[in-house]
């Protein structure tokens, strides 16, 4: 009982915080199934005559399945590349070598270039590589992300030195050390990489806009942006689309959150 009493203010604050985080979701979800005119005042808290037809409208308003597939392919490419490349780069940064400070500074300053300012050169470069309007071209700029490199670095740093030395004495090559010793201990970093790179590539809007030409290569954010155009603003379909676009991300996060939230926080204590 004593413990319960001590904890209730904490629960109260956290419940309030969760409420604030969740209410916007509810409001959009509610709008997306509302049967009434969504612009009538006062708005109802519980949707009246709920129906799913806005979702049907969305499905047919754009080639949803095709855009979805494109988004998935680009995201999967990005995730794989991110896990592999970032792990490699992160591992390198745990080692001492000449020029490490420069590389670190370079990585950090790379984060400070707004993408909107790089559109034209990025487009020209992708064009030179012959990758315009292709999945690879869409994913390539996001193949490696600085934050994730640092996440891997932190995770590798936490691997006990003794373990590595033992592996070296056993005569394992660096490749095998990474693959057999470090990666299994860096599960949390992998989960973080998967989630973050998924988020970024799934959300990317400006680059697919510029780098795709054909309808067949468009991704979901482009479909969503098209949806904001004037006519569709009058119905709940826009909000239905929001839900449909957000669902995969939320689902993936909920699936991987055990590794992500718990792993990220408990994994680091071993260091």
């Amino acid at each position, binding site marked *: 009982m004593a413990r319960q009493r001590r904890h209730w203010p904490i629960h109260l604050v956290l419940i309030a915080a969760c409420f604030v985080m969740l209410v916007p979701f509810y409001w959009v979800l509610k709008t997306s199934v509302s049967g009434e*005119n969504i*612009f009538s005042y006062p708005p109802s808290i519980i949707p009246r005559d709920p129906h799913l037809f806005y979702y049907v409208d969305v499905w047919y308003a*754009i080639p949803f399945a095709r855009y979805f597939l494109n988004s998935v*392919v680009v995201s999967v*490419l990005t995730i794989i590349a991110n896990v592999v490349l970032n792990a490699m780069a992160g591992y390198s940064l745990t080692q001492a070598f000449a020029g490490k400070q420069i590389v670190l500074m370079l990585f950090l300053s790379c984060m400070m270039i707004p993408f909107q300012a790089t*559109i*034209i050169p990025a*487009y*020209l470069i992708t*064009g030179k590589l*012959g*990758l*315009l*309007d*292709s*999945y*690879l*071209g869409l994913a390539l700029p996001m193949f490696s992300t600085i934050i994730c490199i640092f996440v891997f670095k932190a995770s590798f740093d936490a691997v006990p030195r003794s373990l590595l030395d033992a592996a070296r004495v056993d005569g394992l090559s660096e*490749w095998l050390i990474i693959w057999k010793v470090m990666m299994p201990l860096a599960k949390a970093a992998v989960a973080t990489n998967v989630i973050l790179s998924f988020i970024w590539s799934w959300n990317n809007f400006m680059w697919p*806009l*510029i780098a795709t*030409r*054909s*309808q*067949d*290569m468009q991704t979901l954010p482009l479909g969503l*942006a*098209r949806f*904001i*155009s*004037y*006519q569709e*603003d*009058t*119905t709940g379909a826009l909000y239905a689309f929001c839900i449909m676009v957000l669902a995969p991300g939320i689902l993936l996060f909920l699936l991987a959150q055990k590794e992500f939230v718990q792993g990220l926080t408990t994994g680091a204590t071993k260091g």
Partner: protein
Amino acid sequence: MDRRTVLKTGLTVAGTLAMPAYLRAQSNKKLSILTWNIADQEALFKEEFEEFKKANPGVEIEWLDKKGPDLPAFYQTQLVAGTAPDVIDIQGALWVEWAANGALLDLTPYFQNDPAFVKLFNPDYMSSFVYEKKNYLVPFYVAKTLLYYNKTMFKEAGLAAPPRTFDELLSFSQTMSNGEKTGFLTLNFDWLYWPLMKMNGIELLTPDNKKPAFNTPAAAALLDRLAKSTAAGAINKIAWTGRWVEPNGAFASGTVGMLQAHSASYFFVKGQGRWINPDTLGATQAPGDWSTPTNHGFGISKSSKNPELAFALVKHMTSVKLATRLAQIRRVLTANTEADKAGLESVKSDDPLAYAVLQTQLEHTDKMTGNWPLANDAQIKEAFWPEFQNAVLGRKEAKTALADAERAVTRVLRRS
């Protein structure tokens, strides 16, 4: 798996992923066309393209569609990369800049070769696509501003008919404003608010388009009046702060007496406002019959390898037959005289209100304003509008705002 296999499979996968989608627009008989947020007409376009391909065997057509605000970014990137689409659908005054920069093909010779084609179109709309005496666009679909008014609110305020002068416009607005209710709203993007200035005889630039001409006592007095009416609630503030959704939405909520907007607003307002029917909504010309157009036209990129073929495609898509279909399906006017007649006819019985709205678009086409062929239109707009906005929202003295705007506009004019 050893390293080499990993690398090899990686490369093969990369190759197969990269290859199939990347088709260069090198083929001689390939045309690409970029449209402006009209993907909803996919079925119509596909049909049009099929017909065109049948008439011109061996031609391939690549159709791209981008949303309004994104289209300039896309087109300019393509320009830099040298892969600009052959045919583009451009809205508003954007084309002037591209024409001045040499991105667009001068269509005058094509027009001269084909006087019958030119005659299809309303000459006033046609002439709004002329820059330095050269024709650059063919009208695709057109719209200009008009005055919508809420008949119910007019009746409640004891007003019999829509305003015929600017003074009436303001006084009616004042009469109707009451608590949550306001009298007047206008769209403000592009130059859609300019009819208000033109009604009072105010010009943006001198006739040679070289110097600002708006910094006059009359303009200052007008801005003062607008600011006062806005502060008093006669003019809804959203007129100066909103973009597209906000003003249309506010009017659709039924608490605003008048809305100055173009014909496309009708469908938005109708979608949101359940109160709308011929007894409650009126559509008429703004005082002085002034209006600002927002037209769509087809231009041809100078970089096109097949300009003849591209022009043939434009001709095909704006022909009486296909323009009629567009007018009927999408409820727009095309500036193609015959097509518009047929389009209006089909709307007449089905949606009398839409008929009334569209009818205004064909009247007084000689009194269009706010559509100057300025190569740096966007920059001038950006230089002028914020100061105008400051003045009418009462954030700045009208005189100071106009002086600041004059300085900014002069700077833009001097730069080019």
